[in-house]
């Protein structure tokens, strides 16, 4: 019996280092704390992905994505990684939001705010993020601004692949699964995104 208790204690201590799939399995088993660990692990990258996907309210995308994860436990079959499943949900949410925004008279993230030379709404959101240090050096701000602008010039497919690979850390196979695309196509899109960003950010090299 003491051996079983020791195994339970070791398992609880290893919660932080457990895999996404193990944590979600524990959440399905009734451990709501495991879902908190999952949220803290992916929420920021998921918001960055939602922002790059053009979501007007990326926090809502993050919340809706995790609420679907909570309620649709039967949707995760365990055949793919949890991260792939989560980003597939977020991607669908972004697509749905983008479709809704076409009929909405709200401000566009890509449209310059104020005069024509001012930052876009997306740039404002990114720069107003709580995690950004106000004393960050000017070079980083300039790079971020140029990066955001270059990303907006990319086609949606290339921006999506680049964000999932560089920001979210998915492999090309997982990106192919999440986007229902061939892996070589994903790599091709990645190469064109790299080429465009290299040309747009040449001043920072």
């Amino acid at each position, binding site marked *: 019996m003491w*051996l079983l208790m020791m195994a339970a204690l070791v398992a609880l201590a290893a919660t932080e280092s457990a895999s996404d799939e193990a944590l979600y399995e524990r959440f399905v088993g*009734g451990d709501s704390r495991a879902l908190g660990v999952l949220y803290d692990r992916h*929420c920021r990258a998921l918001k*960055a992905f939602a922002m790059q996907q053009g979501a007007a309210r990326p926090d809502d995308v993050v919340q809706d994505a995790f609420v679907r994860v909570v309620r649709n436990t039967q949707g995760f079959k365990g055949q793919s990684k949890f991260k792939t499943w989560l980003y597939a949900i977020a991607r669908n949410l972004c697509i749905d939001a983008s479709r809704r925004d076409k009929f909405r008279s709200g401000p566009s993230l890509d449209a310059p705010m104020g005069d024509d030379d001012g930052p876009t709404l997306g740039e404002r959101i990114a720069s107003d993020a709580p*995690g950004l240090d106000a004393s960050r050096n000017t070079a980083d701000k300039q790079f971020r601004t140029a990066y955001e602008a270059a990303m907006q010039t990319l086609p949606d497919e290339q921006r999506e692949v680049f964000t999932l690979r560089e920001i979210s850390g998915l492999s090309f196979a997982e990106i192919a699964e999440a986007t229902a695309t061939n892996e070589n196509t994903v790599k091709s899109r990645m190469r064109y995104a790299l080429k465009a960003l290299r040309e747009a950010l040449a001043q920072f090299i």
Partner: protein
Amino acid sequence: MVDMTHDKREHDDAAFVDAYERRLAGGRSEDVPALWRDEIEQMVVIHERLVALPLPEVSPAVRSAVLTAAAQAAAERPQSLWSKVAEFLLRPGPILATAAALALLVAVGQRQAKAPVDAGVGGGAVAMAERPVAAELAPLAKEPVLNQEAAASGAAAVVAQAQVPPAAAAPAPVRDPGPQAASDGPQAVAKADTQRPTRTIAAQPASLAPDTPRLQEKESQPAAPAQVAQGEAASDDQRKLPLAPVMGMARAENNRAQNLDVLNKNQFAQAPAGAAKQAPEQLADAADKKGNDFDKAASKDAQAAVAQSEVQQLRAAVEKTTDPAKKKTLLMKLRGAALQAGDGKTAQWAEQALAANAQNGDASAGGVPSKAKAAPAKSAAPASEKTSY
């Protein structure tokens, strides 16, 4: 043609991306193809600056909303703490770990339980003791045993392998009264039994049983009806071995020894006088030769006892008889019997009485010398004394 160009382009894109990924994973720039080297190195610089940018923070309200939804979902699936722990522990990992630990504990426990036995009788004995006796006896129980001695030897071997205590496995010592005693009556048998050392017929190992001369001789001889009956009884014992293996095998071994002695005695008694001296040599093997010498001495003693008894009967008849002619006949018989019994003094007394009877025509019993009358009944005169007389 267009598709081939497209495929080639995708292939090149994939190769480029793979080279870029290898470079990011820590690969050297020299390993990157020269065609893409500059481009990939520039992308590595952009990547490093991009990774350095912090990710946007998510509103704490979102986290609260998500955890609230999770709590509600958990409430819809009410589970106790024990069920949570049990569900977690019943996964393959903890189950395998627990099973391995239990198996280890059981193995250690069994080994500790075996340790005193190993120290006492040794590993080989333990291995033999662990062998099921029923498995050893199964062939014996299935096949009808026609040869009693072989069956008994096999049974004795199984008893020895089953580590039965010697008192239970070995047959009781069987005393061989000798071949002549069987024909001389129970008294002579009892006498011979008390006057010579007992000879124990020990159970022979199964591996040696077929090679012993006794067994070969036994197999070549026809079995007597009583022996066949006892053999059938032994066969019955063999068939019952699985039910009472130890007792049945001990009984079969005892029967074998007894039948062997009875056979020896019968053969010696039925043999002609000339062959009587050779019969023990034919029956006995080298190990039993000393025992057969004792048998010869015992038979001589028995013959002497019978002759002495006859001498006493004749002498009593002589003393009672008053008829000179009948007395003469009895005295002549007495003299012959005394000579045969080796009683020289009685023979001398009979000779003197016969002479006096011849001279006086009336020999009375009172004329018999008192010294000769008081002669010991069991005088074992040597052969030289008999001949000198």
